[in-house]
């Protein structure tokens, strides 16, 4: 498959990871076999890391989750910079995202949990106690409007006339 088609494939999957191979093959004008091989290659090279669903948990009342974004200042370490402390933080299962930032703090940690208490405990017991961590500022997320390019509670309907010239 050409690199253009490979990028096209990645774009389609990034938008909708559930499109069947058969449909992908038709969209790319390639054989199913070639699409499978290409997807395998992208997975092996860790270009495609996972196929996940974007969930609006607020609609699943029993499973309401709490999320916090924590700004963390750390002391970078000789030779490894921020990578070592990042490697320690990312291992906690509560951490759903972790980014190195420019600006007034260093790491942005997104933590998800069942209760506010649980998140607070994670910050005070686990995060703050790491040697490299100098300070933390915790912001609780109140509502999700848009995530990974997907708008929650989208109400833009198809407003077109059913048949037009």
């Amino acid at each position, binding site marked *: 498959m050409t690199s253009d088609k490979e990028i096209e494939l990645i774009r389609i999957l990034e938008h909708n990871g559930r499109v069947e191979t058969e449909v992908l093959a*038709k*969209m*790319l*004008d390639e054989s199913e076999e070639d699409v499978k091989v290409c997807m395998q290659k992208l997975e092996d090279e860790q270009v495609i890391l996972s196929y996940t669903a974007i969930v609006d948990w607020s609609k699943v009342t029993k499973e309401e989750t709490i999320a916090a974004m924590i700004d963390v200042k750390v002391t970078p370490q000789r030779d490894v910079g921020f990578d070592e402390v990042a490697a320690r933080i990312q291992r906690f299962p509560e951490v759903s995202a972790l980014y190195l930032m420019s600006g007034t703090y260093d790491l942005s940690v997104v933590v998800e949990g069942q209760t506010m208490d649980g998140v607070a405990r994670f910050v005070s017991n686990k995060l703050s106690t790491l040697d490299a961590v100098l300070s933390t500022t915790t912001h609780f997320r109140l509502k999700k409007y848009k995530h990974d390019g997907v708008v929650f509670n989208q109400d833009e309907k198809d407003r*077109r006339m059913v*048949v*037009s*010239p």
Partner: protein
Amino acid sequence: MTQSSLHTTTRKKRLSKTVSNIEPSGIRRFFDLASTMEDCISLGVGEPDFVTPWNVREACMASLEQGYTSYTSNAGMPELRQAITDYMDERFQVSYDPEQEVIVTVGASEAIDLAVRATIDPGDEVLVATPAFVSYEPLVTLSGAVPVPVKTDASTDFKLTKERLEAAITERSRAIVLSFPNNPTGAVMSKRELEAIAEVAEAYDLLIFSDEIYAELSYDIPHTAFSALERMHDRTVLISGFSKAFAMTGWRLGFVCAPADIAQAMLKIHQYALMCAPTQAQHGALEALRNGREAVEKMTNSYRARRNYTVHALNEAGLNCHLPGGSFYAFPSVEATGMDDETFAEQLLIEEKVAVVPGSVFGKGGEGHVRCSYATSLDSLQTAFARMEAFVSRHGK
């Protein structure tokens, strides 16, 4: 009291003969039928399934906030005309003078009307490559002239050929209406193929009205503007607009580029009939041209993938379909069912709740085919083609 001899007690006719003789569009009937149906999947929509990019909508709102609510100059805002000529130059390597050769119109629709009215006299003949967008023939008729359909068909992938065109030319022929990439067939013509048409135009001294509104939506080869062909600048009226590529159908904004004498004649009609195109829409269009490239590319890529899917799926469903190189329509043959296109479209709608448009409403050459617009979600396409496959296997010869 004296009575004028012009007084009358009988009722005079109220409608002009020309208008009375024009048939209502065949699309209308399908619209009426389809709109009464619930859960119908429509492949009958002739417009993008994207809403206008946000930056364009935002620019329009900003213009309102800043109080840009008056008329613009008749031909359109000078900055917009400049942006149009820059765009045409950069994208299609064809240059126009923004002062004299460009008019911003109320859709490509108005531009087509202006082109015909500014150049054609009653009795003249205008050749129209068909199947084609529904408005060309009626607009020619409305100006008192005679539309002469020149059929294209599946044997040439719905491209216009020199032979067919020459066979239709008479002493009264004045112009040719071309529209590639085409609605409804999706056909695209290459530079070489267009050059053959250009030769005919030159040999018989014909004008070309080239409706290039789908120019951005050419998926396999770069689009050639007709006026970019050698010696064609002076005989081409190039019609385009924002509806398709920028997903701006409801804004009603298009433009036309033509040699100064023709453009100025068109401007006379435009200035009396319309005054100017809507100011808010012009502000939106300016943003679209300045910062819309990325959005256009994204949409184009999305159509291309759906085009590929559609062609494979239709052929698998037993509906023979050539590869449409542009626009967002596929135009399969319904021969496999033994039905004519009207019956096919009607039965498919009733039995499977899928709306397509019978090819014959787009003029000669469209018989036996239906237009399927793939400007709809992949989910809808998958369901629609599964239903069509079931329909074909039930009715197959």
